[in-house]
């Protein structure tokens, strides 16, 4: 898997690592362009989980027998791999959760409930996914804190002047996405964290879209919390990650109570296990964690710089090709300033119609509000169609998308 530094990735070769592409969809080769929703799985991930079920399956952190110890070892190795992948200081800063949504809820319900008071402010942005909106709305209702929003500019960037006026002594946490799941905008994470810290606020980064597609260095960001999901980065569903600085984890109350998260339980009280186990009540999704570890190995083998480079080239190409479709409008920033996500409208053709016609051509895209209604309201749109890329997408995929969109335009205009 290790490639020479100078060699670019070849999506045609990488496709062969993904069993799903061996099938046809409506009689045509599958063009999968819904990677922002979830990514396909390479054989190594599927096999790592299969092997664990077949050969090394037993509950972790429990048994004093060989199988359980080996399973525990594999689970903790996966934690180490993830820590290394995002440049955490220690594996103890990696809490395994179900997904990004659970990671953000964990912070909101533990740190948030313990620390937010009336008069405090939680700052988020107009380009957030519902998973980084709704938990804060709920916690603000519970605590009396106020939720405030950073607006975005017409071309899909955060309004940095507005940010400076919104950040203040009352801001307790600034929670923002590293990369928009609708606009594709890549936010200047380190700079945003720096501004939050300057007013004494914590910074939570929603890395659901960025971690699978860009190099991640939580120490360079100096982020306090980073949330991301396995299933968008070639790993299985059911497992995700909350990264948090260790001293913050130490100070936070537990999220859920149960087995594994305790040190000692009496009939009247309990004391908590050390981090990160304090936050991992019950039997964890350890086979999925091992699958995530295999996905991390796969991506590390490719090199995240090269993953980004490959997608950048594809976005450049797609941006140009899609604009040949009359009436097509891409929302958000230009191709150099975004990740592999293109959300667009096509005249007034409803995105469900666009997606249904593309489906008949074997092309999978997302249609709707992509769990981000505020950003659609911002552009006065009910819904958009979204094409999003990953390492196995080719120029040919873009060409087939473009051709199919020409047919949609023709069908509705003719």
């Amino acid at each position: 898997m290790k490639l020479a530094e100078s060699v670019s990735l070849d999506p045609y070769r990488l496709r062969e690592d993904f069993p799903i592409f061996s099938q046809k969809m409506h009689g045509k080769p599958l063009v999968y362009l819904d990677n922002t929703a979830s990514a396909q799985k390479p054989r190594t991930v599927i096999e790592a989980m299969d092997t664990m079920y077949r050969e090394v399956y037993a509950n972790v952190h429990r048994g004093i027998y060989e199988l359980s110890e080996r399973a525990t070892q594999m689970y903790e190795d996966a934690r180490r791999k993830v820590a290394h992948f995002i440049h955490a200081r220690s594996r103890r800063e990696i809490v395994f959760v179900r997904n990004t949504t659970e990671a953000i809820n964990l912070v909101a319900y533990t740190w948030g409930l313990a620390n937010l008071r009336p008069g405090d402010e939680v700052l988020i942005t107009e380009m957030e996914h519902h998973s980084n909106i709704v938990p804060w709305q709920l916690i603000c209702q519970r605590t009396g804190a106020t939720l405030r929003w950073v607006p975005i500019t017409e071309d899909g960037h955060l309004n940095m002047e507005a940010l400076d006026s919104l950040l203040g002594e009352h801001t307790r946490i600034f929670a923002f996405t590293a990369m928009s799941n609708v606009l594709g905008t890549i936010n200047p994470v380190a700079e945003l964290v720096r501004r939050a810290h300057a007013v004494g606020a914590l910074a939570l980064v929603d890395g659901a879209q960025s971690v699978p597609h860009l190099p991640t260095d939580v120490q360079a960001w100096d982020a306090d919390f980073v949330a991301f999901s396995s299933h968008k980065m070639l790993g299985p569903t059911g497992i995700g990650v909350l990264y948090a600085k260790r001293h913050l984890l130490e100070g936070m109350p537990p999220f859920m109570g149960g087995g594994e998260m305790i040190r000692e339980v009496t009939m009247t009280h309990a004391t908590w296990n050390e981090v990160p186990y304090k936050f991992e009540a019950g039997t964890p999704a350890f086979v999925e964690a091992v699958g995530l570890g295999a996905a991390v190995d796969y991506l590390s083998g490719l090199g995240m710089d090269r993953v980004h480079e490959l997608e950048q080239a594809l976005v450049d190409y797609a941006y140009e090709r899609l604009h040949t479709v009359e009436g097509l409008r891409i929302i958000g920033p230009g191709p150099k300033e975004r990740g592999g996500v293109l959300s667009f409208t096509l005249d007034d053709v409803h995105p469900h119609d666009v997606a249904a016609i593309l489906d008949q051509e074997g092309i999978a895209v997302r249609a709707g509000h992509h769990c981000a209604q505020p950003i659609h309201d911002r552009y006065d749109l009910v819904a958009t169609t979204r094409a999003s890329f990953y390492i196995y997408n080719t120029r040919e995929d873009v060409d087939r998308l473009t051709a199919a969109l020409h047919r949609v335009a023709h069908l509705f205009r003719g």
Partner: protein
Amino acid sequence: MYDLYAEEILDHYKFPRNKGPMDNPDRVYHDRNPFCGDEVTFMLKVRDGVVEDVKWEGRGCTISMASASMLSEEVKGQPLEALRNWGKEKVLELLGIPLSPTRLKCALLPLKVLQVAAWGTREEGEVTSND
């Protein structure tokens, strides 16, 4: 593969029948599908229990708009009593194509709106349920 975009459906979408405002309607109902943002309003003039005139407004996908247009043609001149028995089979018969569960919701929104306009509030989900 079935043709979701059969000529007749596209024709109703591009040239919707009975679409537009109505002065002093006897019955009006508006609803939307929050999942995809489709919305439909039906307006009826009713005399002696019979639908004398119908207009509708709305925006949405081909399937929901064609369904509204086709239903508006079908309902004119019908006794209100007849509408009571219209269900998803009626809509599928009008559209003439099979639909996936997701698209069935699009197709059934106008029927729900029409029936509530005619009969008042129905039990939640009775019309839009897929099964």
